């Protein structure tokens, strides 16, 4: 599986070319337009400075959450997609990041700008601890070992750490300030989007470093990697650290986005959902987080609410055992599960792989790739 498929015969001829992330004019233009659209989105709502109603106001929150979950899923991509390890504890790691960021701001009076990176680093350290079983076990057994994080961390947050976390009750997160000014919703949006862009670029670059190539070699054949002189265990731990660090970053951002946190936002179901987003996006591709999170979130927050009114009129008449009011909540898990199955069968490499193929088909038209 390649992270950047190019047609046969297309080579880089200069070192600078090899360093470029977006290698073709098409990619560069597309990236620039996309970035511009994301940054302009809040200005094009009815409450934006232009007063136009091109972007629905409700979509701004969705874009923010897509950004946050992209960071969490990109972390998972580094571990699962590139290193071939598995983790079922990403939501728990997000909880660590969220609660650490909030606790540092509340208890020690730190500013968000210090608390967020410290929270992410601490989460990375927690990830290291839960990565230790990867020395001995792999595959299904490693998944079970990481599942422990999903049980232990929420229990710690609810019980022994309750004086810091409020236990099961919500923990209010202080407002983010900059130079004495409290950031408003628009500023929070730009903050989240900027951090998301930086996290995506960092992940893309990590993969191109010695560490990233070691990750890939471990994924492809850990025995061969060891014979090549790669310290497999050390690199696996680095992957767990990075995965958890990204989750901690996402958790910290989620905390400030919603203003309060409870352990119920970081449950096993969320961890599984992030893994599913990665599979749908295309594990092992740098765009996996973008495609996977974008697809699932748009399905959940735009497509399903969009078709629900029609289904509410139609379905209960066609199938009387269906309750009209629960259609929306029933559709989400049903379509989500169905999508996952269909992707595993028909598009196991995910949307990012399909995107690469489409680009090649375009370049090679009228010939088949």
């Amino acid at each position, binding site marked *: 599986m390649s992270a950047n498929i190019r047609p046969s015969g297309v080579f880089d001829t200069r070192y600078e070319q090899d360093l470029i992330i977006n290698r073709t004019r098409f990619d560069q233009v597309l990236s620039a337009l996309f970035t511009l659209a994301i940054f302009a989105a809040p200005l094009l709502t009815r409450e934006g400075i232009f007063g136009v109603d091109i972007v629905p106001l409700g979509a701004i929150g969705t874009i923010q959450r897509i950004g946050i979950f992209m960071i969490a899923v990109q972390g998972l991509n580094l571990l699962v997609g590139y290193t071939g390890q598995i983790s079922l504890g990403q939501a728990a790691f997000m909880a660590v990041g969220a609660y650490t960021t909030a606790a540092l701001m509340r208890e020690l009076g730190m500013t968000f700008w210090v608390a967020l990176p410290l929270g992410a680093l601490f989460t990375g350290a927690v990830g290291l601890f839960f990565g230790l079983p990867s020395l001995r076990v792999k595959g299904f057994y490693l998944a079970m070992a990481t599942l422990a994080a999903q049980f232990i961390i929420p229990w710690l947050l609810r019980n022994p750490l309750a004086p810091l976390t409020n236990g099961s009750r919500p923990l209010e997160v202080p407002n983010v300030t900059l130079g004495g000014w409290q950031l408003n919703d628009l500023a929070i949006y730009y903050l989240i989007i900027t951090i998301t862009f930086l996290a995506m670029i960092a992940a893309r670059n990590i993969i191109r470093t010695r560490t990233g190539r070691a990750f890939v070699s471990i994924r492809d054949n850990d025995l061969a990697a060891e014979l090549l002189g790669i310290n497999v265990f050390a690199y696996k731990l680095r992957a767990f650290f990075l995965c958890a660090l990204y989750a901690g970053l996402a958790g910290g951002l989620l905390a400030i986005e919603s203003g309060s946190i409870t352990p119920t*936002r970081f449950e096993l179901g969320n961890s599984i959902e992030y893994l599913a987003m990665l599979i749908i996006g295309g594990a092992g591709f740098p765009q996996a987080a973008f495609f996977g999170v974008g697809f699932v979130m748009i399905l959940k927050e735009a497509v399903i609410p969009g078709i629900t009114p029609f289904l509410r009129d139609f379905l209960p008449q066609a199938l009387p055992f269906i309750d009209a009011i629960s259609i929306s909540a*029933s559709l989400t898990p049903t379509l989500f599960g169905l999508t996952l199955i269909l992707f595993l069968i028909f598009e196991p490499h995910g949307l990012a792989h399909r995107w690469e193929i489409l680009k090649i088909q375009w370049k090679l038209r009228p010939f088949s790739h």
Partner: protein
Amino acid sequence: MGKRHLNLLLVGSLILALVAFALPAVNAQEGGAIQHTECEEDLTGETILFHTFGDLSGPYAAITQPLAAGFTDAIAYFNEQGGICGAQIEMVSDDTGGDQEVTQSLYDRYSTSDPKPLMLLLYSSADAELLREQAAEDEIPIMLFAGSTTGLYGESADEPGWVFAAIPLYTDQFGAFCDWVAASWADMGMEGDPAIGHLSWEGSFGRSTETPETTAYCESVGVSVVGGEYFLPTATDVTAQIQGLVDAGANILFTTSLGTGPALIAADLVNLGLEDQVMLAGVNWVLDTSVGLLGQRTLRPDGMPSTDGVYGLLPYVWWDEEHPGTQLVQEQFDANERSPLSRNVAYLAGFGAIDQYIEAVIQTVNRVGYENLSGAALYETLNDFEYDALGGVFHYSFTPERRAQNLTRIGILTYLTDDSGAPVIVEVGGNPMMIPLIAPVTDEVMTTPDLRPGGADVPDM
């Protein structure tokens, strides 16, 4: 026990409405139970939206599924009666499935819709706690069918916000229960001094009653609290938790859960053979048809369901009491051919909420005019609001300092029996079913203590 039988006799005849729901309902005077403020503006031709979302298919489903039916029937009924000053009411609703991400997403969609909701009706503590600050920022008042201290008053418990509760706070309900236990213990024939163990759902809702303030208050009135055990709504066995609390000295288990939660505890008490030694009680949601139906899966040695004799708080008038408001709802229930399984608190609450919404909107329109009707204007109305929904089935009373109700009675869940004391069994949908009854055991309405952190009734700790 004498009082219990007396209450059963009082309500028994009315309960036959449930047994034979197809029979003609008691004829309530149409609109007689409900007295809205007179409209000063004619809104005929207008449409006023009513927004609500919550968990209709997750852990709360047992109790909330009929809520949607209640809203639908209530809106149809009130629209037929003229709506709000002639304006028709239209419901906008969604199901979160108990997922907080969905709650946030739905809130974003609702709060940015044009026009913005005048009010949101929610029924989960966790949802209210999540949205408390956002709703205040967006100036959307929330009416909550839950008693979350944090949701209403914030983490510091002294910042009344934009969330208003239709029932007493869970902390205050627990305090009222301790008051009642302290006063009635001698007559109950139980051994030892009263000692309560909390056995509730994990989460904001479940943990809401076990606080240092409630423990101090209960101990100050002579009821000890031995501690708490928590289980997930998906749990199928709580025998270890029960045994742990009983070993710690509990002879009363108090649960802050609903639907399957109290039914599971009651069943496991029977499985452990502790049903005669340990009393089961809970917050108001324990006194619900769903618990009465689920409790029939496990029978005690005397043939009665495990949930027979469960105590709870009763801050509203129950279906079977002779009240024009409940008779009106029963009439609509029958007219809409609803299943007997929907005859629960949520259906009642659906009617009560719509009635309250109409009154709040009328008062606001009278004050600011229809053109200026907004969430902020409605909030001002609710800040000083007194209304008996459905003529007194639900009591709404808010002040700038108080966001929840503080009146309740103690009630009991039991089952209809014949003269020999055997349970009456009817067929519903081809299945045998005992008839759950909910009856007050205290005649007087009691004022709940204020047990928020720093509350007026919190003893020195």
